[in-house]
């Protein structure tokens, strides 16, 4: 269509515009749209059957549940991290972040989550990773245990998946710095499993400051 318009406007076009062809194409598109927007019963059946087929396929995951770990996979500064879903309360989109002055840099601020105030920690700053900016609909992963509960900033939530503990290596030499303390392990797919317990238990995260 773009081409047709271009050639239609260009008075000195080398080839003449075939309006017939344009109209037929437009018509085809229209039909397609109509079909898609209001599919007929037959079409609907076809689609549903296709979906059923896909769904009927055996899932890839197999047995031996006890070796598995449910982790919430997320992206943080171009790196894939995972955190145990046991400790994950929920995942929430980052909206209406209220920054708190007088807090360390890794404390982004607080957020109102269904009338609950939850603080947000930026692990990037905590780990010293490069900034990516508040982009890509940043999300919070709220982790909790008996004592602590806060949200971790994530770039993207990939999903929940089962990770085999057998595949996990405890540590690799590439990981250095602060992160190394909080890493539970790394999978073969380069998924860094964070230790939620450690994260939650860290005293460094507790800010107890009074502004004078």
């Amino acid at each position, binding site marked *: 269509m773009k081409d047709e318009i271009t050639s239609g*406007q260009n008075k000195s076009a080398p080839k003449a515009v075939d309006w017939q062809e344009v109209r037929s194409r437009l018509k085809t598109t229209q039909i397609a749209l109509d079909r898609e927007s209001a599919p007929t019963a037959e079409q609907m059946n076809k689609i549903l059957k296709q979906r059923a087929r896909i769904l009927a396929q055996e899932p890839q995951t197999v047995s031996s549940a006890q070796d598995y770990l449910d982790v919430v996979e997320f992206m943080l500064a171009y790196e894939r991290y995972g955190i145990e879903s046991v400790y994950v309360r929920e995942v929430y989109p980052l909206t209406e972040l209220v920054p708190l002055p007088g807090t360390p840099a890794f404390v982004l601020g607080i957020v109102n989550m269904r009338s609950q105030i939850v603080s947000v920690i930026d692990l990037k700053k905590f780990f010293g990773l490069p900034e990516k900016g508040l982009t890509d609909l940043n999300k919070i992963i709220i982790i909790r245990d008996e004592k602590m509960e806060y949200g971790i900033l994530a770039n993207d939530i990939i999903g929940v998946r089962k990770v085999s503990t057998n595949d996990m290596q405890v540590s690799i030499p590439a990981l250095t710095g602060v992160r190394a303390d909080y890493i539970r392990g790394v999978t073969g797919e380069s998924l860094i499993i964070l230790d939620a317990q450690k994260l939650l238990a860290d005293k460094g995260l507790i800010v107890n400051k009074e502004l004078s």
Partner: protein
Amino acid sequence: MFNNMKIGLRLAVGFSVMIVLLIVLIVVGFISINTINASLQQIVEIRNAITETVNNMLGDTREISIQTRNLVLEKDSAKVKEASDTIATLQQQYDADSKKFLSLTVKDETEVLDLIKKINAIDVSARQSTDKVADLVAAGKKDEAIDWLDTDTRAKVREWITSMDDLKKLEKQYTASSYEAAQKVYDNNLMVTLILGAISLLLAVLMSVFLARSITRPLTVATKLVTSRDLTVDLSEYTKGKNELAFMIQSFGKEIAAQKKAETELTNILREVQVTTNVLSSSSSEILAATTQVVSGSTETATAVSETTTTVEEVKQTSQLTSQKARYVSDNAEKAMQAAKAGRKAVEETVESVNHIREQIESIAESIVKLSEQGQAVGEIVATVTDIAEQVNLLSVNAAIEAARAGEQGKGFSVVAQEIKSLAEQSKQATSQVRTILNDVQKGISSAVMVTEQGSKAADAGVKQAAEAGQAIKVLTDSVTESAQAATQIAASSQQQAVGMDQVVAAMENIKKASAESLSSTKQVEISAGDLNKLSQKLKDLVSKFKA
């Protein structure tokens, strides 16, 4: 006194003196000549006659002797007669001669007379003897005759001859003395004549010298005066006197004075003439040079004229060609005007259609903008859907978490959660696809808008260009009209030019003729100038000969 005598008088006096002397001389001479003549006459007439007579007589005698011998010797009687006759004749002759002799003889020459007498006597006897012989012969006594002849006659004859010889000698003496006398007279006369002659010569010489001097001296002076032209010399001794020479000298003097004056004037004039001649010479050479230049110039003119004529012909040709072309241009201009009109109309139509197009474009742009707005709306919806998908995704995660937390009972729920997640994924994918397509659409729209804008601008430009084209066509039409007019004018002026060229050609011909004539006359002038130059040169030479 002498000075006052005119030359004629002087000459007359001189000549008369000389004439007198001459007369004297002539008279004297005459006298002496006469005397001499008389003497000579005597000698010739008498003495010579005498001598001749004597000789004759002697001859006769000898002849008689011979004839007598013949008379004796001859046998023939006729011859004897002849001889005797001859003797007779001779004797007569002798007698005649003797008489003559006697008549001639001067009476006072006694010796001669005596001798004559003797001779006569002898003669007589001789004759007698001879007669005897003759008689003897006649008688036929030849031998006796011969004997008589040998003895008597011969002796007498011999005596006769001897006496004749003596007479002759005597006569000779007398003749000689006559000669001497004549000679003496001659000598005397000669002396006198000579003396007189000398005297007269001397006188004549003196006279003539004096005369000559009296004439030539003044003449010399006059000549000197004339040649030297020196008036400072004192000529008083020559100018006084009333003779012609004095007058001549005087007049020479005056003449010379006048001449001198005239000469000075002449010298001045000559100087002026010289100057003038110089000027003339230089002027004539200048004239010559100028005429030569004129000649060459005329030749050049002629050449130029012929060149001009050729050029004019060419111009004429060119002008004809131009005229043709102008007409052609004019015709073409008409066609061009028609085309221009059509063009203008086409331009107007073009402008109309372009405007129409612009309207269309604008409507297209509107539709596109609407499309864009709708796209935007779609975008918003897509954003909403994406948001929903995100939330669903989160929800699915939360569901999965809850399911995990629920453990065994949550398994079914985890499936549901999984489905929700997959749906969310699909929705996300779909929305992302939609987004992509929407982006493409948006890009397409913006490019379409851009193109439309461009099109609109192009349409504007097209309108402007059409307007410009219209303007250009108008300008073209105007210029074509002008050029058509100009072409017509050119055609007309070409015609005029052709006519003018003809006139120029005619004029050129005239010029050619005139220049030819001028050339010939200039050549003549050149010749005349040359002659003038030569003449002036001659004049110059002539004038230079005159020394001031």
